[in-house]
């Protein structure tokens, strides 16, 4: 947690073989990583003719038309809002719940602690497909018997998504809270804070990097999920994950618009991720990797 930027490996200068192989390896890897990014960006600025015929490295002419058309070809704005609501709400709930759970595990000794951590973590290995069908039926049945519409609604999706990020979030925060000195919350308890006060006023502020990392992870999980979104949404609640498929019609595939839309929906997460990646690395160092 303390030394996130660098560790001194060797006081000597690295040997030639190392420098050369590094140069080659990193160059190739950069090409591999950036190729789709280049295709996405360049194709989103091409006229339709350029993306319908043979692939062109350079556009015949630049146009921002795809960025205007994406909003009318499919109701992208609605999908966008749906995704924002679903991913935002799932993130907030997931983080709050994970903070409480991780605090309990990190600071208290209680019966069933091990069972809890093992059970929660093991849900990570369930194939999503195993509980997709039953969950689908549960939501339909809850809707039929109580009138609470979970199937097809944003609430159902929020509920589902927040549990996806929960196990990893709890796991990471336990490690993070463990690294926050206990003297700090004991001091807070002496000062008259209850355990919750100690959590909120001392432990949480000290663990902000870990919490930010967990929030980023939770948001990305919800923003990118396809399987449950494809089954559990309808026309009004459809999220970007499913909505993006609407750019291919029977007659034509608007590849330039698909690329433009992909770019537009990626920008919020990629920008957020890159801004906060330091926290994520720090959070992983303190929490997950020990």
């Amino acid at each position, binding site marked *: 947690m303390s030394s996130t930027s*660098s*560790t*001194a490996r*060797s006081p000597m200068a*690295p040997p030639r*073989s190392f420098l050369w192989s*590094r140069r080659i390896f*990193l160059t190739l*890897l*950069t090409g591999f*990583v950036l190729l*789709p*990014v280049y*295709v*996405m960006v360049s*194709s989103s600025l091409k006229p339709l003719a350029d993306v319908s015929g043979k692939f062109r490295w350079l556009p015949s002419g630049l146009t921002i038309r795809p960025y205007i058309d994406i909003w009318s070809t499919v109701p992208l704005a609605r999908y966008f809002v749906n995704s924002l609501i679903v991913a935002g709400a799932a993130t907030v709930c997931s983080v709050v*719940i994970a903070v*409480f*759970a991780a605090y309990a595990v990190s*600071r208290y000794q*209680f019966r069933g*602690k091990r069972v*809890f951590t093992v059970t929660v973590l093991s849900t990570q*290995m*369930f*194939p999503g*497909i*195993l*509980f997709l*069908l039953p*969950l689908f*039926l*549960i939501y*339909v049945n809850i809707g039929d018997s109580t009138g609470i519409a979970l199937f097809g609604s944003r609430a159902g999706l929020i509920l*589902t998504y*927040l*549990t996806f990020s*929960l196990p990893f979030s709890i796991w990471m925060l336990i490690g993070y809270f463990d690294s926050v000195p*206990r003297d700090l919350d*004991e001091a807070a*308890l002496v000062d*008259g*804070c209850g355990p919750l006060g100690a959590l909120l006023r001392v432990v949480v502020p000290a663990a902000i990097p870990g919490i930010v990392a967990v929030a980023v992870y939770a948001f*990305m999980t919800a923003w*990118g999920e*396809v*399987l449950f979104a*494809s*089954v559990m949404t309808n026309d009004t609640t459809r999220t*970007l994950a499913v909505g*993006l498929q609407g750019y291919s019609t029977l007659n034509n595939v608007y590849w330039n618009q*698909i690329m433009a839309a992909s770019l537009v*929906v*990626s920008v919020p*997460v990629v920008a957020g*991720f890159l801004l906060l*990646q330091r926290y994520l690395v720090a959070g992983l160092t303190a929490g*997950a*990797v*020990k």
Partner: protein
Amino acid sequence: MTTTTASAESGERTVRENSPGAARGPRRTGRIKRIGLPYLLLLPALLLELLVHLVPMVIGIVMSFKELTQFYIRDWGTAPWSGLDNYQVSVDFDAPVGEALLHSFLVTVAFTLLSVGLCWLIGTAAAIYMQDTFRGRGLLRALFLVPYALPVYAAVITWVFMFQHDNGLVNHVLHDQLHLTDKPSFWLIGDNSFVALLTVSVWKGWPFAFLIVMAGLQNIPGELYEAAALDGAGLWQQIRRITLPSLRPVNQVLVLVLFLWTFNDFNTPFVLFGRSAPEAADLISVHIYQASFVTWNFGTGSAMSVLLLLFLLVVTGVYLLLTSRGRKTADV
């Protein structure tokens, strides 16, 4: 971890006894509060995990013993019991359903081994190469994390475009520019689809390995390297003797997580191929999805899911047993 928690707990107890907060209410409620508090804090997480993971899992297991077709979806409890029929159908490898499942399983195993191996290799190499500071390191690190940060569907749909037969980049480069093939290949149908899927999966997955190994590298004490350097170990030797062995505990978790994620991956093949994947790239998640939602036969789909879960449980158990034993002896 357990010992420190225990001491903190006892420390906290004495503190609470003297704190003004404890005197607020009667002593008994204070104790109940203290015992109940961890459970109270866990309650939301527990309830949600129950609702979304555990209860559906139990129902899934029950469903796998029922003849659950579309007629019973609104009221699945009334579906007739069918004993082990669904399992028999799933593992009857001479009949079409079982044969297809076995094929899909083998494809998934091969795909997972290759993908996890490559992701781990590339991620570890990149992390080790980037351990020392050099110009542009920060920028490169940010770039390398882009595939991980991109939403799956946006990234994979770009690959779909690149793999197009007529207007894709891959055929343009391989056929038109390098003349490596006689005619443009199909990448998203036929046998090539396995290569396409593997490429996308590695492209998408290696940054996670990179991220975790990078974090793991920072926990290796610098003194180890200094001591090795004093002993005359060169950089390559330091990597082999210190870096890689020190990463072992990190790798234990990393490889397992990569394995489970890749094996269960649905998003990548689903966006890449749509509802029906080509045979060569028929991953098990999509296969079960199709068996359930296209034929509306939830009973058989559930039986297949249960078999998949059993397999993953066994593999994880054996893996943890083997690696933990190796780790213990290595630690001594």
